[in-house]
């Protein structure tokens, strides 16, 4: 019972992570891979603030959301001036740097992690487990709905235009930098929320749980499910959470199960990249109208037209 519940809770949490990461990567086109660090910041802030300041768990989770949001701005303010591939490197550096700080501080539990986290519901009884599953599912549905609301309507049009051609977008008077900071902040705050929910159920967190391996995991979910679609990350998160679990039911020896899961992830990414790069639910991207180069110096212009003289 509890095993099944924790699988469902993990599925729900990864739906939140994948959906919010999809807002950043798929819709906004921001190549950040630091998503797990905001998950981690939410988890650490929430569990440590409850532990040291004895605030209610709910308040801790809210604080975790705020801290994840603020840290995302600390990353995006300097980093979003650069864009594209460089953001991957900047975000990776940010993620590894923050993890390194957490590992080396005493009051964060160091590399060993935090134990004895206060649970959200006092007694771990059947009802509280079920209500936690329900809570996480509602949170996941709310996140998906939030992302859907953001990317449709007037704001969504602006997001699509910004992703299509940022310079043309700016030249119309649109403040792309503010939009990117806002979107990055919202996505990261969602990850912080998931972190709080994670910490107060599993009651143990360590820096290793927010490492680059999880960046790859969430990225795989978004890519396999379908980047830039509402339900894609949901499909991806469910698929990539259920498949390893299904494998463990086959009762293979651990020496086989572990590597097989790795092969499965890698294989899925390769298969999707080659056969269906837009994911399970993705549509083919629209053709670009230009080759992105408009400089007089670099491009070959039409020669002077002389007519009707």
């Amino acid at each position, binding site marked *: 019972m509890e095993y099944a519940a924790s699988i469902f809770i993990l599925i729900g949490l990864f739906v939140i992570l994948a959906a919010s990461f999809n807002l950043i990567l798929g819709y906004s086109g921001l190549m950040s891979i630091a998503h797990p660090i905001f998950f981690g910041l939410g988890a650490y802030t929430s569990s440590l603030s409850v532990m040291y300041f004895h605030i209610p768990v709910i308040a801790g989770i809210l604080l975790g959301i705020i801290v994840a949001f603020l840290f995302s701005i600390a990353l995006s303010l300097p980093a979003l001036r650069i864009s594209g591939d460089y953001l991957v490197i900047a975000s990776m550096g940010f993620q590894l740097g923050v993890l390194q700080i957490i590992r080396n501080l005493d009051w964060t539990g160091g590399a060993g992690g935090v134990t004895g986290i206060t649970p959200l519901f006092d007694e771990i009884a059947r009802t509280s487990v079920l209500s936690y599953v329900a809570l996480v599912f509602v949170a996941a549905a709310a996140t998906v709905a939030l992302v859907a609301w953001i990317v449709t309507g007037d704001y969504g049009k602006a997001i699509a*235009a910004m992703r299509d051609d940022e310079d043309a977008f700016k030249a119309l008077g649109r403040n792309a930098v503010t939009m990117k900071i806002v979107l990055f902040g919202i996505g990261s705050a969602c990850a912080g929320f998931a972190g709080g929910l994670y910490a107060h159920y599993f009651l143990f967190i360590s820096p290793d749980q927010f490492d680059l391996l999880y960046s790859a995991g969430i990225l795989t979910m978004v890519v396999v499910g379908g980047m830039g679609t509402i339900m894609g990350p949901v499909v991806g998160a469910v698929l990539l959470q259920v498949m390893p679990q299904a494998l463990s039911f086959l009762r293979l020896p651990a020496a086989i199960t572990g590597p097989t899961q790795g092969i499965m992830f890698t294989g899925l990414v390769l298969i999707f990249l080659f056969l269906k790069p837009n994911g399970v639910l993705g549509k083919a991207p629209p053709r670009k109208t230009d080759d992105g180069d408009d400089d007089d110096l670099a491009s070959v212009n039409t020669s002077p037209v002389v007519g009707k003289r």
Partner: protein
Amino acid sequence: MTPVLEIAGLRKQFGGIVVANDVNLAIKKDEVVGLIGPNGAGKTSLFNIVSGLIPHDAGTVILNGQPIERLSMHARARLGLTRTWQNIRLFPSLSVLDNLIVAPRYYPGESILRAAFSPGRLRDQRKKITERAYNQLEKVRLVDAATRFPTELSYGKQKLVSIARALMNDGDCLLLDEPIAGVEGAAYEALKNVIRSEAKLGRAICIVEHNISFVRDLCDRVLFMFNGKILNSGTMDELMARDDLAGLYFGSET
């Protein structure tokens, strides 16, 4: 009358290449100025500097009496300076109508807070903007294409849409980078009329164009640019009558 756009002593250098060498230029209200010159003369680069895409090295750019050379690209657009692009650059994932709807100087949908907390006001503004977008499409005779996507349109029609999109800004100064290249037939005449009537609305318009008859028909004044410098100005016929300039333009030795 103070000019709408005034450029003084503008300079920009990429390594050893000077793309803008002490450029001085003023465009008044109601005026259509042509900017011609051979490939690589720095015409598009001048647009890029003035619109804020690339930073300048020295000099001033003044729009309606306000220095704008240190402002970001979007801030310049909000003050009423818009441009089009040589290679069109419509947003391929938005319909033609939506390409125009995201283009006014102030787009209320840009603020997520407003979208969340005052959806009613947003709805009213959206209605007005949609109406204006249809008006601009009417000007370039593309109302029929409103729901289609840019890539479904011919090159010439895409050009017209991009000009309609720039007109959504309702700005005082319009920089058009090769507006007529690839546009033919009825659309050609339509575009000429649009530019002329937009100038009559009190805008200052600058056009980079290789189509000499188009420039001659439309522009009140033509500037000849070469190696980042404005060499001469006058009417098209005056400039073309000068053998030295024609030689530079067409590449023949004189």
